[in-house]
């Protein structure tokens, strides 16, 4: 029951005024999109690995000027449509349900209630109660049911009302979702998407403020992506649904009300590619989900101080896009990782290992990883703030690294 209140109270889907956090962050990737729009359909779903030519690849994804500067909103008003992140997720979901009748949604309050963050609002009326299935509060069983449905021909999206609740489904996610394709000798596929809101919100208390990426990342056979903008939320949702692999899509409780203009044309993103948020020369900052915005806030300060940081939203938490990351490391020779995940065994730790293994020779300084603290997320606002990485910490970490 706690989450219901959280859903209605903490993030009111229709109030654009939203929270402090998202207000700060409305702008960053706007410009990039208008550029993209003018080029037409460059948002191609890369279904064939052979298309992955290094040269074109990076350009296509470039989001050149994410640090907000004046005058950038004017061009974006022309095409596309503006929506909030949760609406973008919903739009992606609806398009896929329209395209493929095997796509269905199951979870707590996804149907008549429309989802605690309204990602499935109106879908039950449109597609009926079986395609948008309100389940009893039995995470392990309805997740397992989604897996069974996926094995027998459906393409379910399982919503965890809060990512933390998926701990109750851990056995199904790990043993069955992750391993059945392998143990069955490749006979059964599990095209399932497991998604939901996670991360540290605004004083939601320890259990509703979990950073579970670290828990899920060592499950074999599962891909994990984290969305951070309405644009990539929609594109990743669609890609996840179309993937033959099980995918966990991480959403962040504080980002649902981010607003952005996205293309009217259909687009699907690659699940495996990182997103260049801001190209730069001095240092590579790798981040994802909500921390992207703390990084961009810090980037403003850093630019003013004369630094030119390169910011990459890694987006794919498993596997890492080693190409985009590597190209950046080879250019800047310095790496700062900023994540909200737990420090021990977290995404940052894995990223550090991957960079050291692959690009050690290009590094001029040790990798610095700013993670949130290994504490149960405290309720009190002050303590909670000290738990996650703040922009000022990022600024000083960059200053130190670039000395």
């Amino acid at each position, binding site marked *: 029951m706690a989450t219901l209140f959280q859903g209605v109270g903490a993030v009111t889907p229709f109030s654009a005024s939203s929270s402090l956090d998202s207000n700060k962050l409305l702008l960053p990737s706007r410009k990039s999109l208008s550029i993209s729009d003018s080029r037409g359909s460059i948002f191609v779903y890369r279904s064939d690995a052979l298309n992955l030519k290094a040269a074109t690849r990076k350009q296509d994804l470039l989001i050149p000027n994410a640090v907000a500067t004046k005058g950038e909103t004017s061009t974006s008003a022309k095409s596309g449509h503006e929506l909030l992140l949760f609406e973008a997720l919903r739009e992606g979901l609806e398009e896929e349900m329209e395209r493929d009748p095997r796509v269905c949604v199951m979870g707590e309050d996804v149907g008549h209630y429309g989802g605690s963050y309204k990602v499935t609002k109106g879908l039950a009326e449109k597609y009926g109660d079986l395609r948008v299935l309100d389940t009893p509060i039995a995470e392990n069983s*309805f997740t397992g049911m989604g897996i069974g449905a996926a094995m027998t021909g459906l393409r379910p999206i399982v919503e965890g009302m809060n990512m933390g609740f998926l701990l109750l489904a851990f056995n199904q996610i790990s043993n069955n979702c992750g391993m059945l394709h392998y143990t069955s*000798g490749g006979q059964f596929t599990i095209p399932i998407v497991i998604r939901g809101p996670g991360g540290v919100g605004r004083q939601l208390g320890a259990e509703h403020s979990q950073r579970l990426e670290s828990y899920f990342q060592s499950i074999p056979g599962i891909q994990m992506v984290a969305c951070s903008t309405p644009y990539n939320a929609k594109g990743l949702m669609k890609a996840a649904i179309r993937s033959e692999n099980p995918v966990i899509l991480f959403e962040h409780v504080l980002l649902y009300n981010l607003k952005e203009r996205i293309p009217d044309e259909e687009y699907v993103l690659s699940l495996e590619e990182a997103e260049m948020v801001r190209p730069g020369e001095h240092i590579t900052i790798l981040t994802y989900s909500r921390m992207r915005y703390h990084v961009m806030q810090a980037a403003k300060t850093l630019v003013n101080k004369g630094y030119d940081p390169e910011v990459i939203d890694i987006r794919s938490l498993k596997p890492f896009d080693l190409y985009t990351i590597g190209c950046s490391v080879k250019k800047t020779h310095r790496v700062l990782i900023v994540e909200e995940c737990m420090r021990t065994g977290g995404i940052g730790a894995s990223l550090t290992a991957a960079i050291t293994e692959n690009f050690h020779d290009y590094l001029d300084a040790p990798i610095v990883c700013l993670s949130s603290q290994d504490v149960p997320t405290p309720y009190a606002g002050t303590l909670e703030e000290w738990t996650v990485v703040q922009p000022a910490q990022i600024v000083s970490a960059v200053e130190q690294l670039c000395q």
Partner: protein
Amino acid sequence: MSFSATNFAQPRPVPVGIRSNEKSLSSDPFRFRFRGSPSFLGSPHSLRFNPTPPLKLAIPHCRRSTAAAVTDVKSSANMLITKEEGLELYEDMILGRFFEDMCAQMYYRGKMFGFVHLYNGQEAVSTGFIKLLKKEDTVVSTYRDHVHALSKGVPARAVMSELFGKATGCCRGQGGSMHMFSKEHNLIGGFAFIGEGIPVATGAAFSSKYRREVLKEASADHVTLAFFGDGTCNNGQFYECLNMAALWKLPIIFVVENNLWAIGMSHLRATSDPEIWKKGPAFGMAGVHVDGMDVLKVREVAKEAIERARRGDGPTLVECETYRFRGHSLADPDELRDPAEKARYAARDPISALKKYMIENKLANEQELKSIEKKIDEVLDDAVEFSDESPLPPRSQLLENVFADSKGFGIGPDGKYRCEDPKFTQGTAHV
């Protein structure tokens, strides 16, 4: 025990007891229960509670069943089997029994490793249920899954070879004893942890309903059987799925193979109300208790339940009271269970009982049954030979089925998908 093997000896077929005031299962599904057992379960009384508990716990001595009173049984036309059906059942049970005996041999000869859970004694359940299914129907099993696979039609060669860890196994040697799958035969596992298969089975049943009602596939009347044991019935997933299956009227049958023991934990020491079938009505579905040592009774109950599921009238919980003739796994010395209890159930061996029934009812003669046994011996010799000669999985297989779409391994430093690297097809890449 009134459901002893001697029931088979009666010239007239013994029906699954349907209380005389109950016309049929479908007319009153919630009151259907197995007749003929004045007290529930065959365990010695001493097992129910420790007579001298070390702590003075006030345990109410009330485990005696209030459910089953002996009532008159009447014959049922459905009970009759044809000669062909009888021979098919016999052959399937012999296959299950002989296969497991062969597994034990091969295990002790070092041909297979790990945990191997044998099904001896429980054959009437697998055969009684699965032989009534169509190929499109789905079976979900547990770690004790070899015989379910065989009954569903997975060739003995493929199952044996899987146990040998060979590339020709039904899961290419990647699953093993507790993870048997066959897409062709709609066997969707093979689940090694307690209870985790039940939600997956519920999902398969959901798929059937979805295909019929959303995708408008009129032919989608497939039924799912979920097998599991008495120990699982104390696990939350069991209850959660009973609820969902009844709630949405899913075409599923929950088949409890109550062999009275969860490794070393007596069912009576683990379960507040040991009559598992009663949990069906509690969730609004039919609950049935049947003698799991009697294949014809099991078959009768199975027929009702499968028909109910197929016509869209929802799930059934069937408790089959059975017994395993071997330890929990081949690693279990089986020292805990009372020899008298074992002997009592051994005397009710479902295969001997069927044999006796068929001969006494002139459905088959000794010679015909012998020739089936001989045929199965040959099948198994062939399976062992095939498995022995089959190649071990090559290194190239290591990374092949981690992801259905190998792009899941991601993009390498060179900008290409890592799966394009020959090391992935060779199985030597680090992932």
